[in-house]
């Protein structure tokens, strides 16, 4: 039997399929998010099954998570990304006590107990200043792909000071910095620092190590360094940064199936 986790994020849909004993990822896939979230997730799911030669009847249970979870009609149930990330991280790096997840639209800090259960969590409020959206804004303003931001930031020796309170204000600051001739790499590094400082503000006083960094933004070079500097503690990147939530969803689907004797 196969169990599926679908993480319908704001920028991407991620799918992970695991085997019956939950020890092996048998397939994973991701695609850009769009307006018809349910249809896109269904198409990606069917495509993933087909590409891996898995009959639909082999899939025992599907669990959806993420921002668009309630739009996924093929899912048997939904659970929030907070819980799913905790389960996914517990599976990948059991000793982790703090998860920093930065996605396209939101960021989260999840505190875990020694058993990997969620002890507490915090999420960004209404502003996107601590999220991947901030990086998209700066990439758009500089006319470069988001994927190249990390390499660019690594060339900075003097990151710019940029407000972490509001992306809209920060964009105005970026325009001002550009007009003053400030190097693009300094601006990108400054934005990374601003995101990191937003996470620190959200974390408050207690960030217990080990710390694991998940979410699509974890794939951007330099972000973990910015977080480490801001937190004053080591930050490791998840082995499956973008898939952690979907993996947790798949594991929970399997767990639910077991408890229901399906």
């Amino acid at each position, binding site marked *: 039997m196969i169990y599926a986790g679908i993480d319908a994020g704001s920028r991407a849909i991620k799918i992970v399929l695991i085997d019956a004993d939950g020890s092996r990822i048998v397939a994973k896939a991701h695609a850009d998010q769009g307006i018809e979230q349910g249809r896109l997730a269904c198409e990606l799911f069917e495509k993933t099954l087909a590409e891996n030669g898995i009959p639909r009847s082999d899939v025992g249970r599907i669990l959806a998570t993420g921002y668009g979870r309630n739009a996924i009609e093929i899912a048997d149930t939904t659970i*929030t*990304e907070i*819980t799913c990330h905790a389960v996914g991280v517990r599976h990948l790096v059991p000793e982790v006590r703090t998860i920093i997840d930065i996605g396209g639209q*939101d960021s989260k800090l999840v505190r875990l107990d020694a*058993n990997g259960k*969620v002890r507490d969590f*915090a999420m960004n409020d209404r502003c996107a200043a601590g999220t991947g959206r901030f990086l998209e804004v700066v990439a758009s303003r500089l006319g470069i792909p988001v994927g190249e931001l990390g390499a660019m930031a690594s060339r900075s020796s003097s990151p710019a000071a940029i407000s972490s309170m509001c992306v809209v204000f920060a964009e105005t600051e970026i325009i001002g910095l550009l007009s003053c001739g400030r190097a693009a790499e300094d601006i990108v590094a400054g934005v990374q620092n601003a995101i990191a400082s937003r996470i620190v503000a959200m974390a*408050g*006083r207690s960030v217990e190590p080990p710390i694991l960094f998940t979410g699509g933004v974890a794939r951007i070079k330099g972000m973990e360094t910015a977080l480490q500097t801001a937190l004053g503690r080591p930050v490791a990147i998840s082995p499956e940064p973008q898939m952690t939530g979907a993996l947790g969803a798949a594991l929970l689907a399997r767990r639910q199936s077991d408890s229901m004797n399906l």
Partner: protein
Amino acid sequence: MTGEPRQINLDQWDREYARLRAAGMAEPIYGGPLSRHVADGDTRLLKLRYDNSPAALRLWNFLLTEEDRLLAARDSGKKLVGAMKDLGTVPVMAYSLDNLVSFYPDGAWWIPCVMELNTGLLQIADSLGIDESFCPVRAMLGAFVTEAHFPLPDLLTCSVGATCDDFSAIAQRLNGLGHPILWWEIPHRRQPEPGEQAVTLPGGFSAPGSQIEFVRSELLRVKIALEELAGRSLDDETLVAGILKANVVRDLLAHLRHLAFTAPLCPMPALEMLIAEMLAIHFCSDQDETILVLTNLLAEVTRRAAAGTGHLAADAARVFWVNPVADLRAMNLLEDCGGRMCGTEYLFAHALDPIPTTIPPMEALAQMALADPMVGSAFDRAARIVADIRRFRAEAVIVSRIPGASHCALEGEIIARMVREECGLPVLEIEVPSITDATQATLCTRLEALVETAKDRRER
């Protein structure tokens, strides 16, 4: 007459109303179907879900007809007192005089929610220089300008000093618009110094006797103003009678809260409980009717608790909620996401405590005013919240911020930290604007995650 507890929408209430009327339900003069208030512009009602009991219907109709009551009171020759930034002190004095009616202009902070921003009150406040960096209570300014939501009071009082900075600014702006205000000062409550007379206040905080004496003298000025407005004296005997009546309201609420928060199945939704609790501070412009409304509600909750019925699943996560919400819909959302209200601190915990009756009445009121959790240290307030969380056996805590409200920004983090450290419970901090529709998905994710976390902890 009442069926099983459930939450119903406005259409369902219309049908239920017809059924109840046909079955002979008696109603007060302000009764009627809930949906009629939509015609008055209260469009948010279309998006809320309500308890299906006649007692809840009466509560809602009572709340939504306050302006009619104020106009009727004026027509009958009574004088109106607007008690601003007052969480349960001046109204007790005012209602002791039978030709005065006190109301709570700050209550206008819910108008942008209930009328879904269609009133223009916030735009008026914007135009007066009080923009969205201030608490939604700035809608009160617009209400004074339009005179469309309450009649202008004959006397306007406002506490100042250790109260919200943003409210003080709003009230000063109101004063500048030509509305005279009788200010009375409430100092920041402090711990007694060694050698000072220490007084334990209702609710357990302590303050130096000198501060109580100061507040008593401030309230005396208000009392004199009320007497002048009423044209009669407010002697101690009359004031004690007024205090006893206020204590009836507080006692009803204490019983209501205890049952609603501790019954195995939740016997009354969070939304109706929020509305009911608010009656403690302003009586919705009719103290006698407040007692009847709450008596009815308590009877319904008692019946349900005894029958072991409720509108939520038995395994709903027990959530303690700190601070009132600007959007009433947030209360529905908590329950939609699997939570159950089991304890609240809506900034006026002191107004739920009985007013002392064994000391001179003005001193008793001064003690109550100083017992306000907002006029002392945030740590004091947090400590009281922690005690209530334990009392009601909460499994999770929500600290809800009011956008622009200065005390929320300052106190929220302290409360959250103390709850985490002393109770070890998950704490969710959220901000609830007047209309949450655009942020509903993210708000629900947080509420669901909190519920999941609380339930998961049961299994450990």
